[in-house]
């Protein structure tokens, strides 16, 4: 068993519905539970419309969740009442957005974009300290201090994403939600940004919730992965294990669709179709731990099937009651 690690984020039965009670009610996130441990990267993958972005936004409280609990660093996020508590939460949890073009104000200079959080939270002693902090941050993300007086349009996509990362780091957060941070970037630049995020994680002991649809990159950066579909998490487990031995049929199908840069592999590709009707029967399903740390959303009668799959894959050696 792994040693007892500290849970920095606990999400219990999170529900985020829109248009509640109306005919067009959307259950974007429907009873999602997971934990994230301090210092790890948790990858949340799914197709568009699966609710992964909504889940991220509900966690950082850009939405008021319909139901459920979000416990960050031991505190229930929805029960933060004083301004100081809310302020602290907003400082400790930061977000990096998908689109490096839309997420930076085009009329602000880089130094003011990066320092906005510093100003709001009063983290700089004086002007000189503010400038120094900004310059240090730019250096940390691989830009140089001359960049601070420029405007966002003067930068390439990869550089803008670095500015977005510098802005998130400015308030010394513990936890960063990165919503598709590399999807808009070129392949060679994606690797640069991912490497930067990994490096920062080690240096500053950050915890990431990494939301993406690019499975190969998610697998690479994440310690654990959660797979979302129709607002529900269907499978959670260690990144390598989910990727190499997916237990849920949906995960299998999703992974089989990932293009691999190998023509020989591609010629022999077998795509696994997924029959989603099974998800819609009225059976009661919950997350069941099939192998150590590897959960699948299953009904009671499906558990033996998943357990058998886990045994076949060598994830479990024997039946344990």
């Amino acid at each position, binding site marked *: 068993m792994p040693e007892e690690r500290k849970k920095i984020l606990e999400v219990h039965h999170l529900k985020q519905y829109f248009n509640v009670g109306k005919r067009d009610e959307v259950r974007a996130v429907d009873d999602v539970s997971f934990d994230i441990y301090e210092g790890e990267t948790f990858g949340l993958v799914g*197709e*568009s419309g699966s609710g992964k972005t909504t889940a991220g936004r509900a966690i950082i409280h850009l939405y008021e969740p319909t139901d459920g609990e979000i416990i960050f660093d031991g505190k229930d996020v929805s029960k933060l009442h004083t301004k100081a508590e809310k302020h602290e939460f907003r400082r400790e949890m930061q977000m990096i957005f998908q689109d490096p073009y839309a997420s930076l104000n085009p009329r602000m200079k880089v130094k003011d974009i990066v320092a906005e959080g510093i100003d709001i939270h009063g983290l700089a002693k004086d002007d000189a300290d503010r400038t120094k902090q900004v310059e240090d941050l730019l250096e940390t993300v691989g830009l140089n201090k001359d960049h601070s007086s420029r405007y966002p349009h003067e930068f*390439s*996509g*990869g*550089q803008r994403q670095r500015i977005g990362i510098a802005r998130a780091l400015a308030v010394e957060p513990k936890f960063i939600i990165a919503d598709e941070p590399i999807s808009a970037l*070129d*392949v*060679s*630049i*994606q*690797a*640069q940004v*991912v*490497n930067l995020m*990994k*490096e920062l994680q080690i240096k500053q002991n950050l915890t990431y919730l990494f939301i993406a*649809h690019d*499975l*190969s*990159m998610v*697998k*690479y950066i994440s310690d654990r992965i959660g797979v979302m579909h129709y607002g529900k998490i269907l499978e959670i487990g260690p990144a*390598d294990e989910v*990727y*190499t031995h997916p237990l849920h049929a949906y995960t299998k*199908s*999703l992974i089989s*669709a*990932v*293009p*691999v*840069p*190998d*023509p*020989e*592999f*591609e010629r022999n*590709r077998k*795509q696994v179709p*997924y029959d989603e009707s099974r998800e819609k029967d009225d059976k009661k399903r919950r997350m069941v731990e099939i192998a150590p740390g590897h959960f699948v959303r299953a009904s009671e009668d499906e558990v033996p099937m998943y357990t058998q799959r886990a045994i076949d894959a060598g994830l479990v050696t024997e039946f344990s009651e």
Partner: protein
Amino acid sequence: MENPENVIEVRNLQIDFHTYAGEVKAIRDVSFDLRKGETLAIVGESGSGKSVTTRSLMGLLAPNAVIKGGSIMFHGDDIIKKSEKEMQHIRGKDIAMIFQDPMTSLDPTMRIGMQIAEPLMKHKGLKKKEAISQALEMLKLVGITDPEARLNDYPYQFSGGMRQRIVIAIALVCYPEVLIADEPTTALDVTIQAQILDLMKDLQNRIDTSIIFITHDLGVVAGMADRVAVMYAGKIVEYGTVDEIFFNPQHPYTWGLLNSMPTLNTAGGSLRAIPGTPPDLLDPPVGDAFAARSDYAMKIDTEKEPPFFKVSDTHYAATWLLHPDAPKVTPPAEIVRRQKKFAEMQRPEPPIKNTTKE
């Protein structure tokens, strides 16, 4: 046409863009062929010139673009010399295009049946009724369920993947000889992407179209392409068959691209990113444009532009590393692994026993 197998021959194409900052040399001496029935993938980063190249084939360059030289031969005629009016006869009929974003490339105010029928009425002079009935066939072909009912729907009533199918239906309805697909699946989810790619392959077999496929996703290239051209800073730096490019790449930029992608086998550690950013094409560097970002750059790379060196009859790369006098270098480990595989693939197959005829 130099070769009757070719549908399009691009020779020494040079395109500049006038900007307030000066002349951006977007395409710098690009030549390639498109053969009948093949899929040619053009890969490269944003700004490498892959989209500009294909837009020039369609005569769809921005007003500030200037074609400085070269030719684009199609059916024995130079497309560059054609007037806008002549291009309108070619566009959509002989050469069709699928754009990246299915949300913006359809007309939101027009029923999709009409959008598919429009090219037939314009190019083939069909009556509306006939055109709509062919549009219906096309909708079936691209796999839209309940096509009769959906002819009268508007684009907003479809999902992204379905919209891209409609875009494909529009592009293929006149059975074009050439289909240009500019990042056709980038905006789609992987499962939908797989469906669309299968659909494109299937339709290509049926109507024998040649496809130019532009993408930066090497995984997609591996599955779709017969041949691959790698572009960097406005030039093609390497081209060959899909196996040659993926298993026996020669240019350090191709190495860098293949190396920076995580694969199923990539374990921890850091990804091998290509350092730096592409050069500014306002003032392209002398010599090999990739030299500044390359671990394998030699002195000559900053002085003289490398010509294409022949690797095989189908495989050429513009890097001084292939010069007979160049020192032997060891490519990155991932590339060595791929080259080993290539060597195995080249080994003659064991003799096959005579099989009895059916």
